């Protein structure tokens, strides 16, 4: 244990926790982070091995309910979409695809523009300097100048990654259609950068990058934070955040690998455990003073869960595209139909990302292509699919709904005996209409590109990568959990910096925006440190 209490205790060593840890360690804070998972070496990742696709379906699955590793906690799912995450140093950045789009300006003004949900207390332009800083820290490869965004003043740290044969085919189709497309922004090196190697297009990003080319925070942030004095404790499962009679957070009680209970004191506590883990911990931290859970006077802790309903539209092409290769973080994107057009029968929109299509085991098993892949025609099925596909992944904006929520299970616990989270989630009619519209347009895209067949997965179950909204920020303590600087309204020395803080979900992959908001919150902690209330 530390001889002195931490200035700041962070729970979770993923994207947002790492950003905050590095910033505060550089500013001279005594930083301690508790992470229930462990470090992983590049050699752990199965992408270079023959059994890659086997491991991706178990040990390196994106769902903790499938992995069932000792560091995972079970999630009780009352939902058509399974929440996905990874517990380890780097968190879900170890297994995320690496796509790095920013939320768009309209995403922060949903109520004002479209009369639904709520406006954020911050906006795109306020975040822009933080986007630039996190782009450099994570290492982003991009073609600057995307007209789907306001003009940038900073260039991208690295040139864009290749868009591949499939990307080029779709880009030409969108040129004919007059539709937007752009090479994807990816937090994946296209050149040597910051001591890490460039991408080799192996396409196994979602089971860890063997090259270290993808920006996972175990590589991009933690070594630097530790060099600056941050202390990262792994195998540390936090049971609750403790508070004193004054209502201030005093630290965290946690369970070590041997099952022993420990306490880590701190002046400030920062939760960075994702939008399921964080509300779970707040609800677990109920006390006499906070009977409904910590920081929950609004009653919104755990509510408004958003996960981006996801559809997949796959085009099959006669010519070989070698589409098992390429960065999984996306080849190109389209934001042609991102903004509201009420004539479509719904509000808001969706982002499309074009991704590689996977290897032979994934191709050969029953899937959206149907159950009948067996018999003599099995071989024709594999020949027409393997390396001949292009996939539009469609991320629909998920509007907040208080009935979509995280609660504590009364029957299921993790291996430490701590109640598991229950996820109650259903897709709204607006999102259903949105996905239907986008599936039709994406099908047109594929057909224009020359696809001889288009296969659709209208709502993919294992697609809950983007966990958002369960401790929203806002100006009013009665209608929000956090203030605009990510500090809880109720507990002045408790911050939440993960995707829980999102007011609305946007329709894009959120990690870039989560990182920028976390960095902004860390700056605020630094700048307000002399006014920060701390326990005696």
């Amino acid at each position: 244990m530390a001889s002195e209490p931490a200035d700041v205790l962070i729970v979770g060593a993923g994207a947002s926790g790492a950003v905050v840890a590095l910033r505060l360690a550089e500013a001279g804070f005594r930083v301690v982070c508790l992470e229930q998972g462990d470090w992983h070496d590049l050699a752990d990742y199965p992408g270079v091995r023959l059994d890659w696709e086997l491991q991706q379906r178990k040990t390196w699955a994106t769902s903790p309910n499938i992995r069932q590793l000792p560091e995972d906690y079970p999630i009780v799912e009352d939902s058509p979409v399974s929440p996905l995450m990874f517990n380890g140093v780097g968190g879900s950045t170890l297994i995320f695809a690496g796509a790095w789009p920013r939320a768009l300006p309209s995403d922060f003004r949903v109520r004002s523009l479209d009369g639904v949900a709520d406006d954020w207390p911050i906006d795109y332009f306020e975040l822009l300097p933080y986007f630039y800083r996190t782009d450099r820290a994570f290492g982003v490869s991009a073609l600057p100048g995307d007209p789907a965004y306001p003009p940038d003043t900073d260039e991208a740290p690295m040139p864009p990654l290749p868009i591949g044969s499939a990307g080029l085919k779709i880009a030409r189709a969108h040129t004919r259609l007059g539709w937007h497309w752009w090479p994807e922004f990816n937090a994946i090196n296209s050149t040597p950068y910051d001591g890490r190697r460039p991408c080799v297009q192996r396409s196994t990003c979602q089971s860890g990058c063997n090259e270290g080319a993808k920006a996972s925070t175990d590589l991009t942030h933690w070594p630097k934070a530790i060099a600056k004095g941050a202390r990262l404790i792994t195998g540390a499962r936090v049971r609750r955040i403790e508070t004193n009679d004054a209502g201030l957070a005093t630290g965290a009680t946690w369970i070590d690998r041997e099952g022993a209970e420990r306490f880590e004191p701190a002046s400030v506590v920062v939760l960075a455990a994702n939008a399921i883990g964080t509300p779970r911990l707040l609800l677990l931290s109920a006390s006499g003073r906070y009977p409904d859970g910590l920081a929950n006077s609004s009653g919104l802790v755990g509510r408004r869960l958003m996960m981006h309903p996801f559809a997949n539209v796959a085009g099959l092409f006669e010519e070989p595209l070698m589409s098992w290769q390429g960065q999984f973080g996306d080849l190109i994107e389209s934001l042609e139909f991102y903004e509201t057009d009420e004539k479509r029968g719904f509000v808001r929109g969706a982002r499309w990302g074009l991704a590689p299509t996977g290897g032979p085991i994934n191709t050969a098993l029953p899937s959206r292509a149907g159950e009948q892949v067996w018999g003599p025609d099995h071989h024709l099925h594999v020949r027409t699919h393997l390396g001949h596909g292009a996939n539009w992944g469609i991320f629909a904006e998920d509007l907040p709904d208080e009935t979509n929520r995280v609660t504590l299970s009364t029957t299921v616990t993790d291996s430490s005996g701590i109640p598991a989270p229950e996820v109650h989630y259903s897709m709204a009619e607006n999102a259903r209409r949105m996905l239907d519209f986008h599936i039709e347009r994406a099908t047109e895209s594929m057909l224009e590109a020359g696809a001889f067949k288009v296969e659709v997965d209208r709502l993919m179950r294992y697609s809950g990568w983007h966990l958002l909204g369960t401790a929203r920020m806002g100006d009013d303590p009665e209608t929000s959990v956090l203030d605009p600087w990510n500090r809880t309204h109720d507990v002045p020395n408790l911050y939440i910096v993960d995707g829980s803080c999102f007011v609305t979900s946007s329709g894009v992959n959120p990690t870039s925006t989560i990182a920028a908001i976390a960095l902004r919150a860390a700056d605020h902690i630094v700048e307000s440190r002399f006014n920060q209330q701390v326990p005696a």
Partner: protein
Amino acid sequence: MTASSASSPMSTTGGSEPLATLDAGSRAHLAAIAGRLIPEAHGMPSAAEVLTDDRVRFVLQARPDLVEPLRGALRVELGDDVQARLDALGRGDPAILGALHLVIVAGYYTDRRVRELIGYPGQLAIEVKSGAPSYLDEGLIDAVLARGPVWRDPVTGRRAEVAGAPRTYKERVWSTTAGSTQGGNDGGDST
């Protein structure tokens, strides 16, 4: 900084001889099912032929969690009729059927000859080439820029109008060096 060890869940080695858990009858059922699902056709061998002990051992050593469901799929009570067995599993235990499918498919498509026949060399390491991408020369980016800004101005609620927005990529500065190759820190903190 690795947590892996031979006994770690991250290890790819399972039991020393997982095939020992399958008796001759079970192996015969597995071969019959494999041949039904993936028969010899279109110049490809049948899975019954490909799924040698080596291939099944490879799969089960990589995924020891599949041993028990495989044994369940091959249990004698389900009879000798392959289709009736598959139908019964599909109705009563789709998870076990899924494990059976995975063992057969994984054994088949990790076989070197099969991979050669389907033209799949595995996930290759391909160097990313430097230089301006071809789609710039082809004018595909210019076509996007020519249509102007796509984003919605949150002040007006309409598609943004940006004075002087580049309408071709040449109007932008193309930098192949694109800044520093050092990620640096997260702060620029002056305190």
